[in-house]
C-alpha cells in the first residue's frame, strides 16, 4: 500500500456508523432517500455550485455541469445518511430563502445568495474538537460540507475545470523536482 492509498482509504471509510442519541433524527437519516426529489432539485444544485465556484477568468461550476456530477455522487457514492441530509438540506435552504427573501434561491440576487450560503456554512460547521468527530461519525457531514466537497470534486475532475481552472498534465514525460513557481500558477489537477 502506498501513501495515497493509505490516506484516501481513511477518507472513503470515514462515513456512516451507529447512533445512540437523538434517535428520531437518526432514524429519519436512515430511511430510503427520495432520489427523484434530488433530481428535481438539479437546477437549484447548479446555482448553488456556481455560487461556490463561480465563473471568473476561468470556467465556473455551471460551465462544467457540476450539478450532473454532484447528483451522481449523491445517488451512487454516498451512504443513506449523507443522501438524506443532502436532500433535507436542500429543502431547508429553500425554505430559508423563502422566509428571508421571499424567493427561491434561484431567483435571489448575488448578495442574497451569499447571505444564504453564509448562513448554511456557519450552521454546517461541526462542533470543535472531539465533539465534532463524534458528530461527523454519527450523523455524517453537514449538508453544506458535502455540497462543497462534491462541488470541488465535480469541478476539479471535469475537463474544463482540470485543464482551465487547474493545471492538467496528461503525460508529463519527465519530472521537475524543484521549479520556480510561475505568476498565476494553478495547482496540478491530479497527483
Amino acid at each position, binding site marked *: *500500500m*502506498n*501513501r*495515497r*492509498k*493509505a*490516506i*484516501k*482509504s*481513511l*477518507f*472513503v*471509510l470515514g462515513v456512516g456508523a451507529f447512533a445512540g442519541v437523538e434517535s428520531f433524527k437518526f432514524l429519519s437519516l436512515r430511511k430510503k432517500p427520495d432520489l427523484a426529489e434530488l433530481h428535481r432539485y438539479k437546477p437549484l444544485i447548479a446555482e448553488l455550485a456556481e*455560487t*461556490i*465556484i*463561480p465563473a*471568473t477568468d*476561468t470556467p*465556473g461550476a455551471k460551465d462544467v455541469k457540476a450539478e450532473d456530477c454532484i447528483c*451522481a*455522487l449523491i445517488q*451512487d*457514492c*454516498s*451512504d443513506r445518511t449523507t443522501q438524506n441530509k443532502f436532500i433535507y438540506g436542500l429543502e431547508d435552504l429553500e425554505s430559508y430563502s423563502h422566509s428571508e427573501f421571499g424567493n427561491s434561491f434561484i431567483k435571489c440576487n448575488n448578495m442574497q445568495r*451569499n447571505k444564504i450560503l453564509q448562513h448554511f*456554512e456557519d450552521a454546517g460547521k461541526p462542533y470543535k474538537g472531539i465533539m465534532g468527530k463524534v458528530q461527523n461519525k454519527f450523523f455524517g457531514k453537514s449538508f453544506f460540507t458535502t455540497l*462543497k*466537497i462534491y462541488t*470541488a*470534486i*465535480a469541478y*476539479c*475532475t*471535469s*475537463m474544463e475545470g*482540470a485543464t482551465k*481552472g*487547474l493545471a492538467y*498534465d*496528461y*503525460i*508529463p*514525460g*519527465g*519530472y*521537475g*523536482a*524543484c*521549479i*520556480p*513557481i510561475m505568476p498565476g*500558477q*494553478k*495547482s*496540478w*489537477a*491530479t*497527483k
Partner: protein
Amino acid sequence: MNINSGGIAQNTYDAIVIGSGISGGWAAKELCQKGLKTLVLERGRDVVHIKDYTTATKNPWEFEHRLMPTQEDLAEYPIQSSNFGDDSGIKQFFVNDKEHPYIQEKPFNWIRGYHVGGRSITWGRQCYRLSDLDFEANIKDGTAIDWPIRYKDIAPWYDYVESFIGISGQAEGLGHLPDGKMLPPMELNCIEKHLNDSIRSKYKDRLLTIQRVANLTRGWDGRGPCQYRNLCDRGCPFGGYFSSNSSTLPAAMATGNMTLRPYSIVTEIITDANTGKAKGVRIIDTETKETTDYFARIIFINASTIGTASILLQSKSNLHANGFGNSSGEVGHNLMDHHSNAGAYGQHEGYKDQYYKGRRPCGFYIPRFRNLPGEKAALNYKRGFGIQGHGERQEWFDKAQVLEGFGKDYKEQLTTPGAWTVWMAGWGECLPYHDNHIALDEKVKDKWGLPLVKIDFSFKENEEHMMKDIQDTSAEMLTNAGFKNLDVFKYHRPGGSTVHEMGTARMGKDPRTSVLNEFNQVHDAKNVYITDGSCMTSSACQNPSLTYMALTARACDHAVNEMKKGNL
C-alpha cells in the same frame, strides 16, 4: 466428479508453475529460458500487457463517478476497496469479496488480484535488499527458527533479478540495506531535500533517500522510460514499471516453451503414493467446470502466501496426512505482514516560490536506524522499521476537506498550490508468531467446493511498542526540520493492509520445524519448490517482493541443475 485426464502424455510438461504473479512470473521465465516445457496455471482471467489495461489512458472526467468508489463497489468489495479506494480505475485488478469469501477470526484485510500477473500489476514497486542483519535476526534474538541462508547466498541473485527488472535508486553504502544494480535515481523535491538535509545534520545514524523502485528512469529491455503519470496501478502502456505482464511472462512466452492456462484453480497436488513426491496437479477450469490433471517432473507453487498454504493443506494423502509437505505441522503458521499504521504528518511554511512538474511514482525512504549492530539505545522492542514518505504541496483535494467560505476567493484558494506537507509512516517488521496462522474451515465451502480459508492474525506487543517509537521519532524528525501543525497518527487498519503477507511455509534447516529447505524445496517432496512470500522465515522490514524474485531465480537454477544430475 468429471475428470478429464486428456491422456497423460498430452497433459505432461517438464514443469508446472502455479500462479503468475510476481514470483510465478519469474519461475515461468527462468524455467522456460532454461529449456523446460512449462505449464503456467492462473486461477483468474488473462491480462495481456497494454491491450488489457482498459483504464490506463483515461482522464478523470471519463469516469462516471470521477474515480470515487460507489456504494455498490463498497458493498461488493468491502475489503479490497480499502486498497483501491482512491482510484476506482484500478478496481478490475482486485477480486470481488462477495465471490471470494474468507473467514476473519480476527480482522484481516486479504487483498487479492485473481488474474494473470496477480498483484504485480498493483504492487508498490519498492525494491530493497535484505542483509545479514535480517537473515541472522531470528538466531541472534532467539525468535522462531534460523534462516537456512545468509546474504552471500542470495546476493548474486539480487544482482541477477535487478539487472532484468530495472530499478531506479540511489546508492547509500549502508551495510544493512545493501546497494544493488540501480538505474539513475528519481529526484527528491524541495521539501524532501530540506528534510533530508535536516536529518543528516542532526542524526549521525539516519539519512533520507529517494525510494528504490521498479520504475524506469531510462529505457530498459524494450520498456519505458517512466512518463511520470503516477497511474502505475492501472497497468502502464509505456511499460514504465516492472510487472509479470510487462516483463517476465512475455520473456517466457518468447521462448516458445510456455503454456499459459488462465481460469485454472488448483485444487490439489497429486502425490506419488510410493515416494511421496508430487506427480502433478489437479485443476478446475472455472469456465467449463471440468476437472483436469496435469503432470510434470517439478512443480513451483507461487500462489501467494495464503493461497499456497491453502493448496498444501487441501492436498492430503497417505504420505502427506496433514497436508502436502506438512509433516512439521508448520504449514499455514507464522503468518506475518508488515505494519504501516504509525507515522506523522506536518506542514512547512517555507519554499512558497517552489513547485514541481510531473507526478513522480514514488516518495522517500529513511532506512532502518533502530536496533542496528553496536547501537546502545535501550528499546522496548526487537528489530526495526524503515520510514516511507512523500512531500508535496497541498492540492485541491486536500484543501477541499477544510477550506472555509465560497465564491471567488474560495475558488482562488482551491485552485492554487497550498503549503508544503510531508506525510511519513514506518513500515515495520512483524515477528513470526506460531499462533498467527491460516487454516481451512471444515464446513464452509466456496463455489468450487473448496474449503474457506480462516485467518487468525494480530499484531502483538513488539509491533505495538515499535509503532509508538515510529510516532515519536517521526514527529521529532519533522519538528527538528521546522514542520508545524503536526498530526501524529496511528491508523486502526488490521493485518493484511500492507499487503505483505508471508511466512506460511517457512524455510529452515530442520524438517521438523520448517516446510522448505535452503533452496525452497519442500523437505517432504524435493521436486516441489515454493518461492512466494510463504517461504519467509522472518519478515525483515523491507518491502519483500525483490527477495521473492531473487529466491525464485535461485531456486529455478537449483531445480534445473538437480534435474540434469538426475536428482529430480
